[in-house]
């Protein structure tokens, strides 16, 4: 039994949020991102701006040269996260099998709904538009690999300057045929280097990869070659991972002007370590390694890493390690363009349970009954009607 996977990608998401906030932006060329005077980059460009060649990740200064009337909007991430959460709630309403891959993208496994994928996609798109006023593009296929590429293909077929709001369906069994004409670089795992190497072999399309002898790809690229061959034939059996486990938590800063002052660099590291520690604590994680990343003005970006004696989520331990690494790598007075601290080797520390965690079966049943009753009352009279007494006290103060 094949699966039905849906890939949802919100169209020009940050820009869409800004248009809701300020409707006069609609239809105008604008970009969300950092200031052009500094080293800001474009985080999201409106479709009107895209007709001028403005693209995400482009330096804002360059974007303004391409489109002199470009309106630059400072990002409001809290608002984007809020909107994203609203969208994710709509997805979760459909199925538990949701894998969020970024603020504006997610996979869903809708196989169990027993409905054609396209029908589910249309309904989902309509819900998100009607309830949240957001446009999205959707790819439907038998696996994550093809569904994501389908979304990109659907978007690329949209009329220039308009919201794509695309739905692209790849019927089961047609994956290889669908992928075949696409450029090799559209395939996951084909970066610029691999693309160059493939081009040198005369391989330009995904179809070329699929047709190439597997043994030869394996000989040239090792395991990666085998993976490419399999993907090029549209095969991918990775499941939907419902809760993405973070591999590392990091914080980095690009300076507006290169910094060579030790005090300033150390202060930045301390602040970053604090922030990383706070994130770890919020997520209930501890890490076993600390990594320092530094970028020189020529864009070379060395990193140094060390392993901690004990897993930690404390700012002090992270700061100490980061400063030690910094002193190893930084020649005094050397200008620094970017600096960052990350903690890896993340895991959930053992948690000491309390006596009150141990509830008897009767207590468990009582609690369940209470929850049920509360839910019933709230469903009828609204979420705010039943509150804890302690909350009322706080309100009065």
């Amino acid at each position, binding site marked *: 039994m094949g699966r039905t996977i849906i890939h949802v990608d919100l169209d020009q998401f940050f820009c869409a949020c800004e248009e809701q906030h300020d409707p006069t932006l609609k239809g105008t060329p604008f970009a969300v991102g950092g200031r052009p005077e500094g080293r800001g980059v474009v985080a999201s460009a409106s479709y009107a701006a895209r007709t001028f060649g403005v693209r995400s990740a482009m330096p804002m200064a360059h974007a303004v040269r391409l489109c002199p009337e470009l309106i630059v909007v400072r990002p409001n991430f809290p608002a984007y996260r809020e909107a994203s959460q609203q969208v994710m709630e709509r997805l979760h309403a459909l199925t538990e099998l949701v894998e969020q891959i970024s603020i504006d993208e997610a996979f869903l496994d809708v196989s169990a709904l027993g409905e054609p994928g396209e029908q589910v996609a249309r309904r989902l798109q309509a819900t998100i538009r009607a309830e949240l006023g957001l446009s999205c593009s959707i790819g439907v296929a038998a696996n994550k690999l093809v569904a994501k590429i389908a979304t990109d293909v659907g978007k690329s077929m949209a009329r220039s300057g308009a919201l794509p709001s695309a739905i692209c369906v790849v019927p089961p069994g047609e994956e290889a045929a669908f992928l075949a004409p696409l450029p090799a670089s559209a395939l996951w795992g084909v970066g610029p280097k691999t693309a160059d190497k493939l081009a040198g072999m005369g391989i330009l399309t995904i179809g070329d990869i699929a047709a190439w002898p597997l043994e030869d790809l394996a000989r040239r690229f090792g395991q990666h070659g085998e993976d490419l061959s399999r993907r090029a034939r549209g095969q991918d059996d990775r499941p939907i991972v419902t809760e993405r486990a973070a591999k590392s938590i990091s914080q980095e800063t690009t300076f507006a002007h290169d910094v060579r002052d030790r005090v300033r660099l150390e202060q930045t590291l301390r602040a970053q370590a604090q922030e990383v520690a706070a994130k770890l604590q919020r997520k209930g994680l501890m890490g*076993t390694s600390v990594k320092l990343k530094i970028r020189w003005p020529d864009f070379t970006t060395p990193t140094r890493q060390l*392993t*901690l*004696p*004990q*897993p930690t989520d404390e700012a002090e331990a992270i700061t100490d390690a980061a400063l030690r690494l910094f002193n190893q790598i930084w020649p005094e007075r050397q200008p620094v363009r970017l600096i960052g601290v990350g903690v890896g080797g993340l895991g*959930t*520390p*053992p*948690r*000491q*349970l*309390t*006596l*009150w*965690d*141990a509830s*008897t079966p009767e*207590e468990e049943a009582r609690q369940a009954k209470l929850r049920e009753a509360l839910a019933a009352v709230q469903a009828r009279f609204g979420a705010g009607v039943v509150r804890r007494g302690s909350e009322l006290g706080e309100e009065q103060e």
Partner: protein
Amino acid sequence: MKLTCLQENLKRGLATVSHAVAGKSTLPVLANVLLATDGGRLKLAATNLEVGITHWIGAQVQEEGAVTVPAKLLADVVGNLPNDRVTLTLDARTQTVKVECGRFTSNIKGIEADEFPTIPTITDRDPTASLPPDVLREAIDQVVFAAASDDSRPVLAGVLVRLRDTRLFLAAADGFRLATRTVTLPEPVAQAAEFIVPARAMAELGRIAGDSEGPVTITVTPGGGQVLFHSESTELVSRLIEGKFPDVERIIPQQYATRSVLETAELAKAVKLASLFATASQNVVKLTMEPGGELGPGRLIISANAAEVGDNTGELDGMIHGEGGQIALNVKYLSELLGSVKAAQIAVETQSPQSPGVFKPVGQDGYIHIIMPMSIR
């Protein structure tokens, strides 16, 4: 004031009351010990306003009187004197106490006795109960360490004392473990009572009971604000903690999936070894219970694993009945518990990795110690 007593008795008496001397206080007199003649004896008293301890020693009183002197200095001086007769003489004008023993003379400046807070005694009330000192001492030692060491939930920094019929019940819980001890008394209590004593005061009472030969009587003030413990030569008064102690009976599991009976000393040794590694990994030790078959005994495996240090595994034979399974515990709690158990064998009852481990010394029905596991994912 002028009196003579034995250095040995004075030294012991000062040690007994010293635990109630305030370490740091804005009231200088609380760092002092009260010396007062009292019906042919010398009364020594100290208080930190939470706990007050009074101790009497035999003395030849030549002149009545009272004074307070720095507790630590006096104890240090007396401790260094020869084991001989000590004469204490107060110069009322300068409030200076002359300490004479053999060929040594010291003068210690004191503070007037009037400035010393009155330590309440309860004389107009019959004791609530009378307890054998050795039994009391053992019971206190088995529960007091399980009380919380901070005051974030005040009742948990205390020991619950329940007196009813011929039963004394003590309980302490810091939120992660619970120790309860029931003692059957030789005679019924005069009056049923239930109160919470600060753990520090309870630990003092344990020490006092250990030094006492006669019974220890308990009297609760009519208002319920204070409790007085009285032994032949020592009195301890403590304020009580207000509030409701958690319902301990509900916390104690009534069933188990696996019951393991182990040699206490062997288990303690294995735990000690594991603790050398566990301290580097959040104190986690894992106990794995493997039930025995018809022919052989079961096994208990104790392991600790610290990523950066190394690991340790220990195996014990034991009578293991039931399903078997695994539980992860804080090694500190486990060692403290084992340190308080005198029985040769201990039973461990477990249900699941998320349910408490219940420890019961074999042959001592009155002691139940519960340790909540650590959840490892």
